[in-house]
């Protein structure tokens, strides 16, 4: 047997530094910090810690302005996931994260590992995942990559969640040419824990064993975080080897094993290995605990032979964890991991030196100051220019090119507004047996346990075209819409996770979009008591110099005290009164109607009156809780007409509309004014509803009555619900059946 040795590491050259995504001034910062030339392994560690994906160097100073606190917030941003208190000793742990670049290069594996990563973030904190959501954006349907990227990423999301065993209950799918070379795959996971059973990354205690758990380390995903921090161009597909491969089976075992050893009180600290794998997890455990960390890489379970220190530190192999265990519980924890057939190895220990020391074959390959690796990462206040909002369009200047009935049927069959059944039927939304509201409504709803009345409502929202036309109002609207979708089920909205997808932050106009979207988000979160507890920033979403639409996805979570009172979108019965709650001006700027019927992407988006949002939403929620309404739907893309059609299609019950708000009919039917809901009430309760609304200062207009098998808009031909459904359900399956 030959004695294992360390091959010589390559010399540090300007080209090598550039390959690691480090700018010359950033490299100078390294030299100043450590007072010598870094080793190759150290260079890799710096590139992993200091890339945009891990360091948030362009976004940090702006993220600080977001509201992150409320009495019910247990843990805000900075940990693996956010944690909120929902009473009775229960906590909800949740976060959203993007896997945009990997999913474009290798759609199935990119998406699976996105789901796997976010589930791990949640159960690392001691929570059992109870639901997944996603937010997906693809290029123009005619772009050659759109169909295969959609097919692969959706199969991947399903493939991981279905096998892992968590219901995927809600999400969003949309298309736009600005995502042609850069899809968005944002995955959100929500878990349930006990408030006294939350686990954190910070290590505590010197000389404690650091344990490696889960799958073995291979060469997959090498440099993935660095790839995610660069623009795409020609030849990006050659980066396929940097995409990791997901193993939901291993993750399911890891979940069960982790929750078991947590329940047995074995764990001091725990951190999953996500982006930048072993490097990031070990540094975070040490730095957060004010401790040094020494790793002996010879102990790391490897899938391949001959891996170097550099490769092991930068591998992004999936389904791995790092833990600090209570020394007296080590044997018990190991037995549990062995039972689940998982690797378990002591790979290092904590020290009091505040150094991050990495050894391979007895040789020190890296010796760096652990806190500075994170704290001294570059921080940029990148130049930005204030975006000029697009001019307001008057509805009177936009004539209707067709009848409103025809426009409705046509809109229902557009890529953005059509049914996404083809997508969500590939997700197991029933597993765990707690799904209260299945996909297709305003928000997903799951009860927290069979023996409880409490349920959680969850949603993901943003309207990227609004953000493009006015980042500030668009940012507000994303938050307001999430809040409204939760409210429409009867939930009290509690907190937000965000996933901020933007283009290249080195361009001042992109940075301006970022800054103003964030301002809008912050203002709305404050006004609605809807703090941000976790999130992720994804920049450099550009291909060949063209950025995506600014897409700050908002994931909202709310609580319903008694899910038997939750509201759904389906009309409940015939002969009920239909009310429109909220102010309607007929705002067609940036509407789906303007784009898909008139053929113009133009105008300012609808402004968001946060006081009206709150007043109207609180009114609707209180009526749901009292049982005063029978069906509720928020108004968003496509406006009033689309919402009516969705309520009719969900129930099979039609409606006759005899009254509309003042204004041109096409504008009030398809305008996208905010802070609005459609509700139905029993006919006998209609007068009481009107007076309740008046007393609350909430606009409420009776539009008509449910019943029959068709939807009739004033002065329009009646449309059979079956025809609405055919239009709504046909587009996506037909499109996906096209050439691969």
């Amino acid at each position: 047997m030959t004695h294992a040795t360390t091959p010589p590491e390559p010399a540090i050259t300007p080209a090598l530094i550039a390959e690691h995504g480090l700018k010359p001034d950033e490299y100078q910062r390294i030299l100043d910090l450590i007072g010598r030339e870094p080793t190759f392994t150290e260079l890799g560690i710096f590139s992993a810690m200091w890339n945009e994906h891990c360091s948030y160097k362009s976004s940090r100073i702006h993220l600080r302005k977001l509201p992150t606190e409320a009495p019910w917030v247990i843990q805000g941003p900075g940990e693996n996931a956010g944690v909120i208190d929902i009473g009775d000793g229960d906590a909800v742990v949740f976060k959203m994260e993007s896997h945009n670049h990997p999913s474009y290069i290798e759609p199935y594996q990119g998406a699976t590992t996105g789901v796997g990563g976010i589930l791990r973030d949640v159960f690392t904190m001691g929570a059992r995942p109870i639901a997944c959501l996603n937010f997906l954006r693809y290029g123009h349907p005619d772009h050659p990559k759109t169909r295969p990227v959609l097919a692969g990423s959706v199969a991947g999301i399903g493939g991981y969640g279905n096998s892992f065993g968590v219901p995927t209950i809600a999400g969003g799918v949309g298309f736009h040419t600005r995502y042609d070379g850069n899809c968005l795959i944002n995955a959100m996971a929500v878990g349930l824990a006990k408030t006294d059973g939350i686990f954190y990354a910070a290590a505590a205690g010197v000389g404690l064993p650091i344990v490696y758990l889960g799958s073995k380390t291979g060469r997959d995903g090498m440099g993935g975080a660095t790839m995610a921090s660069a623009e795409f161009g020609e030849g990006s597909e050659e980066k396929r080897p940097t995409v990791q491969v997901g193993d939901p089976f291993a993750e399911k075992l890891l979940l069960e094993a982790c929750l078991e050893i947590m329940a047995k009180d074995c764990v001091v600290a725990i951190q999953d290995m996500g982006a930048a794998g072993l490097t990031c997890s070990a540094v975070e455990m040490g730095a957060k605990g004010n401790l040094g960390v020494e790793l002996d890489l010879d102990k790391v379970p490897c899938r391949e032979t001959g891996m170097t220190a550099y490769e092991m530190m930068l591998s992004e192999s999936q389904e791995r964890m790092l833990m600090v265990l209570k020394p007296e519980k080590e044997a018990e924890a190991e037995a549990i991991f062995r039972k689940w057939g998982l690797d378990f190895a002591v790979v290092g220990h904590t020290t009091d030196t505040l150094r991050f020391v990495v050894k391979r074959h007895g040789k020190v390959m890296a010796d760096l100051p652990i806190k500075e690796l994170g704290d001294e990462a570059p921080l940029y206040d990148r130049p930005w220019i204030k975006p000029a909002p697009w001019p307001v369009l008057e509805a009177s200047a936009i004539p209707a090119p067709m009848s409103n009935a025809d426009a409705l049927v046509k809109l229902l069959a557009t890529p953005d507004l059509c049914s996404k059944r083809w997508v969500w039927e590939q997700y197991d939304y029933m597993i765990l047996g707690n799904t209260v509201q299945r996909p297709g409504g305003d928000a997903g709803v799951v009860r927290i346990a069979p023996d409880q009345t409490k349920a959680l409502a969850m949603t993901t929202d943003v309207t990227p075209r609004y953000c493009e036309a006015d980042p500030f109002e668009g940012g507000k609207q994303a938050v307001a819409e999430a809040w409204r979708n939760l409210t429409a089920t009867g939930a009290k909205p509690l907190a937000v996770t965000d996933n901020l997808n933007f283009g290249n932050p080195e361009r001042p106009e992109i940075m301006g979009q970022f800054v103003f979207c964030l301002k809008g988000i912050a203002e709305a979160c404050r006004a609605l008591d809807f703090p941000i507890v976790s999130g992720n920033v994804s920049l450099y979403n550009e291909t060949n110099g063209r950025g995506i639409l600014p897409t700050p996805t908002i994931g909202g979570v709310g609580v319903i005290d008694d899910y038997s009172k939750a509201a759904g979108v389906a009309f409940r019965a015939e002969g009920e009164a239909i009310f429109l709650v909220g102010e309607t001006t007929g705002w067609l700027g940036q509407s789906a109607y303007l784009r898909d019927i008139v053929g113009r992407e133009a105008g300012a988006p609808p402004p968001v009156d946060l006081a009206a949002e709150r007043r109207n939403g609180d009114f609707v929620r209180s009526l749901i809780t009292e049982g005063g309404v029978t069906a509720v739907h928020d108004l968003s893309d496509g406006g009033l007409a689309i919402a009516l059609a969705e309520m009719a299609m969900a129930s099979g019950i039609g409606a006759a509309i005899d009254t509309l708000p003042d204004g041109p009919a096409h504008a009030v039917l398809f305008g996208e004014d905010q802070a609005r809901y459609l509700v139905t009430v029993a006919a006998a309760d209609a007068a009481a509803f009107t007076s309740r609304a008046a007393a609350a200062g909430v606009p409420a207009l009776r539009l008509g009555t449910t019943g029959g098998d068709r939807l009739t808009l004033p002065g329009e031909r009646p449309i059979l619900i079956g025809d609405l459904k055919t239009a709504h359900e046909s587009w996506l399956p037909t499109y996906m059946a096209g050439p691969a």
Partner: protein
Amino acid sequence: MNAAVIVFPGSNRERDVAFALELVSGRKPALVWHADTQLPPGTDLVVLPGGFSYGDYLRCGAIAARAAIMEAVRAHAARGGLVLGICNGFQILCEAGLLPGVLMRNKDRRFACKVAHLKVERTDTPFTRAYAPGQVIAIPCAHGEGNYIADRKTLEKIEGNGLVAFRYCSAAGEVGPAFNHNGSTNSIAGIFSPKLNVLGMMPHPENHVDARLGPTDGRGLFAGLVDALVKAA
């Protein structure tokens, strides 16, 4: 009813079916680890739950069929004991030779989570006695490989001996390709063993038992089992 739910690495609907069993029978089932070699004494119903045993990276259910506990399950079935395999459990029963045939990829090669209508083919079995002959029940499906295939001789035996438990159908009970979402031969959603003591089915009756969440058409299957076991005792 003394039910035992077998837990393989990668099983993921064991809690769902345990909940359904307890809801209907009032008794918690035992959860039995795949590496065990014996069923709890007095077990009268074995359930192989849904999931992705061992990741199902090989043929679905192929590894689980060779797990240590399966010897005890085979012996239980041979004694006439009741065995219910749902989804991955059905796949495992086929791989273990306790039921004939195999489950292939769905005809459109996509995983499908949707509520299917099933026609109850016979009601003189412990599993289906609570249903009416020809009754149509709505039961969720969640599988990527539920396309039932068997050779012609086997099919003749299954059909000739009335061993089809459920067929996919329309809400009105019509059987045909339009309602056979995964492409199963003869629209087969579930089959019995010749002695009617083993049932394998792709749909998930355990997810339609709680009136607070929606339809409860799956309850009848568990209620029938409770009734059969009480009468047998």
